[in-house]
């Protein structure tokens, strides 16, 4: 069988790249590890190594071809004993091969890692372009005729599927179509949403066959266990978090924040407020600082919605509260226009009702941004899962004394690390960084929160 050489992905987010140069010609014999081509993205140039031995039977994508989709077949390798007659079938077959992973060509893993970190560096322009197959027909039109896959081209979907995806905030490019020629149909959207609409019982029954690659949930035979039925809350968490992690492209930005000034300010404020019975917590400061930072960088207060994005003008902060059997995220609405005392009172009341299981839907439905704080558990830092359809979540670690370098000398400071998880569909690194810079500014110089 001739072996397909596929366009490799230089980074997890790469969708297309330029085939800069072939270093071999048709008829050349290659062995595993030989450098056969160079490919580039806007960030890097990488060498493609041959994984298998053989003779280059046919080069399908010419030197200098731009926007070659990842996993497109770029060449066919003939194994020993195969001649050109095996090519026709392979070339014809390659048009259906987009699902195959780019296993057959590979690039050194070090480069992947490098590129990944590059991905998460905020860029000066703050304007990384993320190809969106749905919204760039013109750009796609100028792309050379890719020899194989339709990847990166127009997404074919039924009108009903488009509307349902839009209503669910689902990116059509992330859905696999099961209709004719891969067209996305209603059933695919339902699968992607992990649920079936009420009337679709017939189809739901038909779809009970296990999905390919679905995990086997049978417990190991020799390990004793308790079987716990999932609560409604648990099921919702499972569904939403799965949906988020599998459909929302997350990236993470971490920053360290000095808390000394804020703690002093807090002590002072709490002394003054003692008579009123108000005690402002570190978390209250964080809520206010988040809200103000979002006001300053409204692009970070955003929601992805298929072919558009919403930038919210009000800061409704969902705050994760651990409760028996799970967690809930009550919302401090319009936190950007509320003072610390008001936020503190409201949060205390919401958290109390959350613990008692007395929240009503208005308390937790909506929200434009989330905070999850595990500082009280001594967690130094962590990455949180975005709470869809929101565009970002801030994970807050513990405040702890650390040795830091201040004015070229080691000093002890009360430090806290926060990690912002961002939906890359709606925000890029630079915006996340801007937000964190603003957040850090408010926490480290809390007097500015009064402005």
């Amino acid at each position, binding site marked *: 069988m001739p072996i397909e050489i596929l366009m490799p992905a230089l980074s997890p987010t790469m969708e297309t790249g330029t085939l800069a140069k072939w270093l071999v010609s048709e008829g050349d014999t290659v062995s595993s590890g030989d450098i056969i081509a160079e490919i580039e993205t806007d960030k890097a140039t990488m060498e493609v190594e041959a994984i298998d031995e053989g003779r280059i039977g046919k080069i399908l994508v010419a030197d200098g071809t731009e926007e070659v989709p990842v996993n497109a077949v770029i060449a066919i390798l003939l194994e020993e004993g195969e001649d050109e007659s095996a090519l026709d079938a392979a070339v014809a077959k390659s048009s259906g091969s987009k699902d195959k992973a780019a296993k057959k060509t590979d690039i050194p893993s070090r480069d992947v890692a490098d590129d990944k970190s590059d991905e998460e560096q905020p860029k000066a322009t703050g304007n990384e372009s993320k190809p969106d197959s749905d919204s760039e027909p013109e750009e796609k039109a100028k792309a050379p005729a890719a020899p194989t896959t339709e990847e990166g081209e127009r997404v074919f979907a*039924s*009108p*009903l*599927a488009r*509307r*349902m995806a839009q*209503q669910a905030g689902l990116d059509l490019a992330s859905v696999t179509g*099961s*209709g*004719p020629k891969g067209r996305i*149909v*209603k*059933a695919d959207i339902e699968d992607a949403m992990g649920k079936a609409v*009420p*009337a679709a*019982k*017939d*189809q739901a*029954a*038909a779809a009970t066959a296990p999905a390919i690659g679905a995990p086997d949930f049978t417990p190991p035979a020799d390990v004793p266990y308790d079987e716990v039925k999932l609560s409604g809350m648990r099921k919702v968490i499972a569904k939403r978090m799965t949906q988020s992690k599998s459909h929302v492209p997350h990236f993470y930005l971490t920053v360290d924040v000095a808390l000394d000034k804020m703690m002093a300010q807090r002590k002072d404020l709490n002394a003054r407020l003692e008579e009123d019975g108000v005690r402002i917590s570190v978390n209250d400061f964080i809520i206010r600082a988040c809200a103000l930072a979002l006001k300053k960088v409204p692009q970070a207060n955003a929601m992805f919605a298929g072919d558009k994005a919403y930038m919210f003008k009000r800061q409704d902060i969902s705050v994760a509260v651990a409760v028996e059997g799970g967690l809930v995220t009550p919302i401090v609405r319009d936190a950007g226009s509320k003072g610390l005392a008001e936020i503190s009172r409201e949060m205390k009341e919401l958290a109390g009702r959350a613990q008692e299981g007395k929240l009503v839907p208005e308390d937790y439905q909506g929200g434009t941004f989330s905070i999850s704080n595990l500082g009280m558990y001594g967690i130094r830092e962590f990455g949180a899962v975005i709470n869809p359809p929101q565009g970002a979540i801030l994970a807050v670690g513990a405040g702890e004394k650390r040795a830091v370098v201040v004015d070229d000398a080691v000093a002890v400071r009360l430090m806290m690390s926060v990690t912002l998880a961002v939906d890359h569909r709606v925000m890029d690194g630079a915006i996340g960084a801007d937000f964190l810079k603003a957040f850090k500014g408010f926490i480290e110089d809390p007097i500015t929160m009064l402005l």
Partner: protein
Amino acid sequence: MAETKYDLIVIGAGPGGYVAAIRAAQLGLKAAIIEREHLGGICLNWGCIPTKALLRTSEIKHYLDNASDFGLSAKDIDFDLKKVVSRSRKIAGQLNTGVKGLLKKNKVVTIMGEATLKGKGGVSVKADGKTTELQAKNIILATGARARELPHLKADGKLIWTYKHAMTPEVMPKSLLVVGSGAIGLEFASFYRDMGAEVTIVEMMDRILPVEDEEVSAFAKKQFEKQGMKIVLNASVEKVDIKKNSVTATIKGKDGKTETQTFDRMILAIGITGNVENLGLEEAGVKVERGHVVTDEWGRTAATGIWAIGDVAGAPWLAHKASHEGVIAVEKIAGIKGLHPMRKDLIPGCTYSRPQVASVGLTEAKAKEAGYKIKVGKFPFIGNGKAIALGEPEGFVKTIFDEKTGELLGAHMIGAEVTELIQGYVVAKSLETTEAELMHTIFPHPTLSEMMHESVLDAYGRAIHY
């Protein structure tokens, strides 16, 4: 010695079987089809097609009877029943020959005889006292169905008819009792009424055309009554006394009271039952429930390598459903990737009575039952120029949408030519259009199809002509 080993053997050459066999041949499978009676099955020989031929006659007679409405005069309108029936038979014969040619052209081996499953892919065929043993990797049962009878209601072919006898009358009955008001019952009721018979319909349910939308049922009932039919709902025929040239039926009404009435002839149209007998199904491990073979969504029966499609595999009993199931089963057998099982909400249903009835998808009641919040549009024939020009101002087109997604959940039509119109909605539904695409579609003027547009517009409060 003829070939005895096949990739696929299809038992039954109706619209399910012969289509399946041809599709198999197209896919390169070596296919044989076994038929005990006539190619084309009931549909072509004793169902869909010959009844349409009869209904064309009664329709033309209806026009002639009303010629003066169109400024014409027609006198001494009469018919020769023998010729009417022979036209219908001739058409069936013509198509029967057509199917034979199609099978031959596609190199499907046609074997006339009675088939029995022998297990492990074996099929024996009996014909003219001889038995031939055949072997196949896969077998598709497409044996169809026949009219259902009840212990106290059995057809004798003389006074009590099934569809088959009703299609070849020797005399025109003066009075006719039709038991059952599904498509078959109503088509015969319509034919005989337009040909001049006094027609009474007895239906067990609380409405005629029980599978259709309730509004359609109600409208149809009014239309038929206006034509002079008598319709008795919530009623059943308890007893039949066969006289020399008439039958006296005891009809039990809703209140439990019985009434006896005498008719020249009686038609049984109380559903059908699958042809599951003498096929060796039980021995082969094929599961049968309530007269029909049980299958999964691809047509697989409980026995490996044995499939069932069409009427023998259960409702809805429609030729186009059988054909489609046949194609799906064969493609599954051939290992084609990316197949989808048939969706029942995409099977259109048509009744060729006067007025015609056609529908696809959910009825209003079913949509509500399924939990949808719906938007309903309705447009009457009286608002359509073409309908008025045709002299057919009675009827309507109803559409049902999911309020949330705009999905077309169902469409229901009654009136002239709606059986030819419904396909527009079926295509729309298959392609998963929403109301938006239908609203943006340009419908030709002047046509009846404009009502389909207006009905969609009406669902969103935007109808122009009503």
